[in-house]
């Protein structure tokens, strides 16, 4: 008998609690920056494309919804010629972000991606590439890599000595 009253009291009390339900879409929920929603491609702090088209995101993708084609500019900087994500297949698992060695591909808290036509769920590079660095403001892969590109010659990357002078006799 007591336990039944206890239960009734608990239910009655909840009627006066602040509701958890949000009046979406008028009211937007608060999401953590780590939320795994729409995928973007970011730029490095210099404003250049971060993606180096290494194919790690596409190979780790469990539903194989990422496909890209690498190419390079005249200075040897590699970038994706095309980059396509089929969001009608994407499961938002975040493995691509985890695999990305340059922090180019990132998941964002935007989940409002419903479309009337499935074709519109296929995002090309122009739909994915944003103009900022996203969640990781500092990182610039080409500043760390040994490859020389336009504006960065051999030996100018972080933690590198100037190129060896082969004609020197010094040890």
């Amino acid at each position, binding site marked *: 008998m007591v336990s039944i009253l206890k239960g009734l009291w608990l239910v009655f009390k909840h009627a006066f609690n602040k509701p958890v339900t949000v009046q979406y879409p008028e009211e937007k929920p608060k999401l953590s920056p780590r939320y795994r929603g729409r995928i973007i491609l970011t730029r490095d702090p210099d404003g250049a494309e971060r993606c*180096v*088209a*290494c*194919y*790690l995101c*596409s*190979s780790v*993708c469990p*539903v*194989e*919804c*990422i*496909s*890209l*084609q*690498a*190419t*390079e500019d005249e200075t040897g900087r*590699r970038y994706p010629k*095309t980059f*396509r*994500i*089929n969001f*009608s*297949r994407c499961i938002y698992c975040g493995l691509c972000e985890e695999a990305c*060695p*340059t922090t180019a591909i990132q998941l964002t808290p935007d989940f409002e991606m419903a479309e009337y036509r*499935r*074709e519109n769920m*296929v995002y*090309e590079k122009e739909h994915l590439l944003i103009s900022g660095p996203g969640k990781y403001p500092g990182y610039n*892969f080409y500043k*760390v*890599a*040994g*490859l*020389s590109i336009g504006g960065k010659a*051999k*030996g100018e*990357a972080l*933690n*590198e*000595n*100037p*190129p*060896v002078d*082969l004609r020197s006799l010094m*040890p």
Partner: protein
Amino acid sequence: MPTIFIDNKPYNVQPGQNVLHAAVSHGLNLPYFCWHPALGSAGACRQCAVQHFKDESDTQGRMVMSCMTAATEGSRFSINHPTAKSFRADIIEWMMTNHPHDCPVCDEGGECHLQDMTVMTGHNKRRYRFKKRTFENQDLGPHINHEMNRCITCYRCVRYYRDVAGGEDLHAFSASNKVYFGRFEDGPLDSEFSGNLVEVCPTGVFTDKTFRAYYSRKWDLQTAPSICQNCSLGCNISPGERLGTLRRVQNRFHPEINGYFLCDKGRFGHRFVNEKNQVKVVHPIGPLIKEGLMIGIGSPRASLEANYALRKLVGADNFYDGHTELEHRLLSKIMEILSQHPETASLEDVRNADAVFILGEDLTQTAPMLALSIRQNLYKRAQDGAGTQGIPDWNDLAIRNAQPELPKVVYLAHDIPTKLDPLVTHKISTDLESIQDWIPALKAAKNPVIIAGTSLGSEPLIRMSIELRKMAPQAKLCYVLPAANSFGLMLLKPKSTPLLTHRGETAIVLENNLPLSTLSHLHNIIAIDFLESETTKNATLALGCGSFAETTGSMVNNEGRAQRYYSVFERREQRPESWRILRDLGDFSWQNIDELCAEFAQEFPIFEPFLKQVHNTQFRIDGQKIARQSPEFSGRTSMYTNISLHEQAPLQDPDSPLAYSMEGYHGDMPPDLASSYWRPGWNSVSAFNSLSHATSGVKLKP
């Protein structure tokens, strides 16, 4: 066969092998860098250290480099001994102190021996806090990309390039921590075999520049076993395709033909497959209405199946040779010789010969891998010479230090300077006046090879080859022919082209570009080809067919070895095989290559042993077709979504036991069906060490 013990387990090894070779052949995970099965051991990288024990009771042992230790009966080693293990981890850590942070932008990534070895030893964090050494790169021409920062100084490149391929413009410069591999100055590499640096280099210093502009990772390429179409040697290749374009060609090991290497023509000469000026495909093609006499002109670059279909369509009397008149005459002579002396020399025979007599062939131009085989032969002779001093044949640096006197091996008759001249013991002119000087050497040789060919268009040279053969019955003959399937076409007994003058009203020209004067009298020309040519432009009807990379067929190489090449991919707008076009023209009923070949074997019993041995379309392993794509093949649900959101079912391949899919069989398979090398922990081409090295193809007797 000696037995050695590795970590207390017995292993049978080949006599004279070193411990490293024995261990990797048995699939053991022992890291190494400077050793290569075709280059021997240098003992330079110190990566393959193992513990060597005196006897069963010895638990401490002493450290040895496994590549420099002979696998003698009953010897005991340990790969997993903690001392050897930590030593190997330290070596990798030292090598990685200067290695750049390049893997994502490195073309070797994913098939890198250095990556594999680093993972294998467990190294994962750079503890070295100081700055990295850097180098300026060189421009090594249109084929090879140079990225010297990635070098780990294993010396494989110069050992291959200078000692095996005989190149002189790649050197090791400077000393200590600054060793640099390159040329004196920027410029294309001179050697015709420079492309092998891509596979010889264990890391990304030398990479394929032609692949770079349109790059794809190894696991994303769809591959199939194929045969090189650029000369008559029939080297085995593994082309890789992605998104409808052929991206690159890699070597496919064949012990009796190309071995571990390819020439640059074979490796880089495949871009025509992606050319835009393809002949339009006509579909559907109804049966041909025969009006007047119809003749067919076969092709030495088309498959056996296509040539047979054409022969069947026009009849044996109206089937003509696609070679020129002169070539036809020379080839008929060669066929006549080979019908009496069917013992032809493979490239492996050339590598092992103790005397090579070349009659009027500039091999580096007409059959480059034959030239490399002769260079490899001299490399082997040096090993044998050092062997008399008790040096094992894998101990490369000791052999070089011993500087054994090389026996006289190469004899050449040619009028112009050739690239093989520095190796030639005795050179005479092609009038063969002083050929008498060769005879003592020929008679004394145990297994000589006589090389002749059609490139100079000289019948006396071919007649001389048989004269020499008669003097030395132990000798094997080797003829360099004009095109990839010249031998096969000749086996179908075509008539010589000049015989067709003013004959026939309609001609079907199969995959050939003929001088228009030959065809001027004809009312109708039906040309079947892949790329546009003078013939297709002037034809009444031009029918587009597929290139070698998208069709399945068979070819016979210069030694009479019949081999099958399999289609690597299908374009979205499929291009048919030539024999399917001819089937439709002739209203034949063959549904797949097996049905054609059944009829073919009946009509030409000479091909029966080959067609029986080749894996037909019904062949399955564990009930499965063999997958052309790797299990990691990516992008299936987005590759073509720009065209249609609906994913296509995998294309069906009615002509081979291979599937255009990642689903299917992936494990050990017969060598003529294997097109990529992989085993756990070994993603680079080095994985071939533990795989089957059996031969394939069937030698036919004309």
